[in-house]
């Protein structure tokens, strides 16, 4: 345990050399690396802070925009609801109106159908009545009925109006005074002469009558003067009766 001055001095020098070595090869590079990393981390932190601030700003903008969109959406929804309500009311009104129209149309159709059915029934009844009357009259009609009908015709000719008389005369002239008289039964000579005289009086010209017989007339007479045909017979009356119901139905 003695102090060696050479060792003492050399140890001092050694320690100073050690300090230089450590400072040169340990502290400086390590601290520089740490400082560089701290700077990098600080830059990243600053960048992250900027990004966070930017993100917060964007988030705020997003929230504001979302709120604005919500308000606009609510307004649009309210408008849409109002429009839907108005459209529904309008559609309901139109539907009710259309329904009323359809009801009226259905009522008209039903009424028409009933009327047609009624007319059909009437026509059928007329037809049946005409057939019944024709069968009945065919059974009971005879020369006596025909004679009465001819007499009635002669009397009716006196009651023609002036226009009818003019038309009768014109047709007679056009037929060159040749007329045809068709009866179901043969007429008596007196009736033939009486009818001829009457026609000549009315037409104011001599007339040549051609006599025919047709049982289809049942009873009565048919006068053909040119284009004019005067009917006073049972068959024609029955036909007119039946046609009357048909004309009425078609009208």
């Amino acid at each position, binding site marked *: *345990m*003695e*102090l*060696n*001055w*050479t*060792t*003492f*001095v*050399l*140890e*001092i020098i*050694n*320690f*100073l*050399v*050690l*300090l230089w*070595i*450590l*400072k040169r*090869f*340990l*502290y400086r*590079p*390590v*601290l*520089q*690396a*740490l400082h*560089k*990393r701290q700077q*990098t981390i600080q830059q990243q932190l600053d960048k992250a802070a900027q990004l966070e601030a930017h993100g917060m700003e964007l988030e705020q903008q997003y929230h504001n925009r979302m709120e604005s969109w919500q308000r606009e959406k609510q307004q649009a929804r309210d408008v849409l609801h109002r429009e839907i309500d108005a459209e529904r009311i309008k559609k309901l009104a139109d539907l009710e109106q259309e329904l009323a129209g359809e009801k009226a149309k259905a009522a008209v159709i039903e009424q028409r159908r009933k009327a047609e059915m009624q007319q059909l029934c009437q026509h059928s009844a007329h037809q049946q009545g005409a057939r019944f009357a024709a069968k009945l009259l065919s059974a009971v009609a005879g020369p006596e009925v025909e004679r009465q009908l001819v007499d009635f015709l002669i009397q009716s000719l006196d009651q023609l109006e002036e226009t009818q008389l003019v038309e009768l005369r014109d047709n007679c002239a056009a037929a060159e005074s040749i007329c045809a008289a068709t009866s179901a039964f043969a007429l008596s000579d007196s009736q033939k002469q009486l009818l001829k005289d009457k026609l000549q009086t009315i037409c104011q010209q001599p007339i040549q009558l051609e006599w025919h017989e047709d049982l289809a007339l049942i009873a009565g007479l048919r006068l053909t003067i040119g284009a004019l045909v005067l009917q006073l017979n049972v068959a024609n009356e029955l036909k007119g009766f039946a046609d009357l119901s048909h004309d009425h139905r078609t009208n």
Partner: protein
Amino acid sequence: MQQTSLDINTLFALGPVSITTTVVTTWIILLALGLLCWLLTRRLADRPQTLQTALEALVTAIENAVADVAPQQATLLTPFIGGLWIFLVINNLSGLLPGVHSPTRDLSATSALAIIVFLSVHWYGIRIQGLKQYLAHYLKPSPILLPLHIISEITRTVALAVRLFGNMMSLEMAALLVLLVAGFLAPVPILILHIVEALVQAYIFGMLALVYVAGGIQSQQLKQQRAELKKE
């Protein structure tokens, strides 16, 4: 070099300069430390691997320990205090190697370190405060205390040197005695105690040096702050 001897042997002499085992061991440690530091720090990456992380952790731990005592002078004092810790730890633990004696069991080496600490206290104090103001603090609070200040400076320096020397010397002696008396495996607990003691003594030496240096600097700074407060 005899393994059973506790004396400091002289390996060779260059004229009047005798080179002892302590000096040679210290050179080897310096060489190994320099090579190791160069290898570890030549390729420092931004993304550190295990070794770099450990190295950075060591430097950061030293800096934090210094900053705990002297926060304002941490950057200035870290190389010196860190150098003391690293040097003493390796020096103390080198005694565990077969055929190698710890340089710190040599009073010349521990005295050299103690003198360095003594000079460093004044160097840092004068560097920061200036020579006049630094010397003035020996006269405060009263010039009567100047002898006590001087005695304190000398005794704590001697205590630094003797404490480290005594502990390391006694450890090696105890290990040698146990080995001579008990046999081959009996010194193992003593060797474990050697490791702990080596770390503790290195820490104590470095921490005391830090406290001495920081105490001188901060006492001056406290007085300056008080004076500035009075002026305001």
